[in-house]
């Protein structure tokens, strides 16, 4: 989308480490300071986009936790105009006579004025070791059951002025093809296809274009803390790991628990909906 293209380009030019573009204008409101994001990746090869859960860190902490102060930079300006034209010609392989050409023209423009709003690490310390609400919100219970990892937005890049983005494109295909494509399809195609499109998008002041996050870790006693490094790769729900360690202790009572924290990082808990069994854990090592 036009919004995603601009936010990605801005991140590429100004990003620095760990800054992530917001991909959709409608999502932008969910990436506020302290918004909670979740992840439950299915693949080893691509990251699932961060999914906002529509709760803030402050919503899940017990009363008494103070909101840390943020720092706001002076405005930055970013202007980007692109006009490009591509033309493609393809000659055709055996069995088909003719040729086809395609032409694609595109122009885009944007001017942004934005600022960075960040919680410095020293201010985050006031949140470390905060207690969770008791009882915990139901969404946390679901995230715990699925084994999601949770993150908290700690820095946003937001627009200081409303702005309008432009995107105009046209595709023109001209060609003639005749012959047999396979044993069933024979015939001739001739003609010209022209498609034009123009789009403008007005983005309001305060829209979040990009963000940084830190992982949320919840210990067994309901105490929370934020990991400073996003590469640390810990599990958000540490108490679930303790349960598994307890399980290994029960299984092997004659000796020491065989599962260290390291190996538990490679264990997945499964839930069954079989009648009569409300909850079953299986350990895959």
């Amino acid at each position: 989308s036009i919004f995603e293209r601009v936010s990605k380009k801005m991140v590429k030019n100004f990003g620095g480490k760990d800054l992530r573009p917001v991909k959709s204008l409608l999502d932008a409101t969910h990436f506020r300071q302290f918004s909670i994001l979740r992840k439950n990746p299915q693949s080893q090869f691509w990251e699932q986009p961060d999914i906002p859960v529509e709760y803030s860190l402050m919503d899940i902490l017990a009363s008494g936790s103070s909101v840390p102060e943020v720092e706001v930079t002076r405005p930055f300006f970013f202007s980007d105009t692109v006009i490009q034209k591509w033309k493609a010609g393809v000659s055709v392989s055996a069995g088909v006579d003719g040729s086809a050409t395609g032409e694609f023209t595109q122009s885009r423009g944007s001017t942004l004025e934005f600022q960075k709003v960040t919680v410095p690490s020293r201010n985050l310390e006031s949140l470390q070791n905060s207690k969770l609400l008791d009882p915990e919100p139901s969404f946390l219970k679901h995230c715990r059951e699925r084994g999601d990892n949770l993150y908290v937005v700690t820095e946003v890049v937001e627009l200081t002025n409303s702005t309008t983005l432009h995107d105009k494109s046209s595709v023109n295909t001209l060609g003639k093809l005749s012959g047999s494509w396979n044993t069933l399809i024979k015939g001739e195609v001739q003609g010209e296809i022209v498609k034009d499109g123009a789009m403008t998008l007005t983005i309001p002041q305060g829209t979040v274009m990009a963000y940084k996050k830190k992982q949320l870790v919840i210990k067994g006693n309901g105490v929370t803390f934020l990991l400073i490094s996003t590469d640390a790769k810990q599990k958000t729900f540490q108490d679930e790991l303790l349960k598994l360690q307890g399980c290994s202790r029960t299984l092997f009572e004659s000796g020491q628990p065989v599962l260290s924290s390291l190996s538990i990082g490679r264990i997945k808990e499964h839930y069954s909906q079989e009648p009569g069994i409300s909850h079953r854990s299986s350990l895959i090592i």
Partner: protein
Amino acid sequence: VPSLEPKQANSRGAFDFQHLQEEVFRKTEALAQLSKDIQGVVFYNILPMLGDRGALQDLMDVLDLDSWDHLKGPGSIILNKLRQGSRPPWVKPQDSILYLLQAMMVLSDTQLELLALSMEKRILLWQRELVRIILEPNFKYPWSIPFTLPPELLAPLQGEGLAITYGLLEECGLKMELSSPRSTWDLEAKMPLSALYGTLSLLQQLAEA
């Protein structure tokens, strides 16, 4: 099943394209186990959802949460179809659909629109082969490598199909030259190209059904 996290694995060079192929193959096989009727319903109802990322996200959330929430539109048709019939509790048809949806969510809105056009034009197979040809030799290299796309894979695409395919590749971060089949491998393109490969493979399975 490899248990390393993606970043760890990539930084150690533990994964190559074969591992991606195996992961995608397992999910494609799981999808192929569903009846042709279910696969057809998924294919034809995902198509109109490609212009609406919110609808894809809603369906993904319901499948991900394994909840009984109600959806509207094509997502509800897929959901109802998946919930019909009795099957053993360990057979979870939603897992491969969830995998497909998560791969799709890595792609940009433009790519989703181009995918819809590709489904209508029935060019998924050629596109998947092109992506495979790009990924296979370059997958483990973190530096820029020039490559040339084979003409025999470009020829069946023709005019608009070629523009759609180049759009899909360019949105992954590859710099495509429409006047020639040459381009350059870029590490930044690896993740979106892998997701595109997974998406095209699973959609092609649905299309064949």
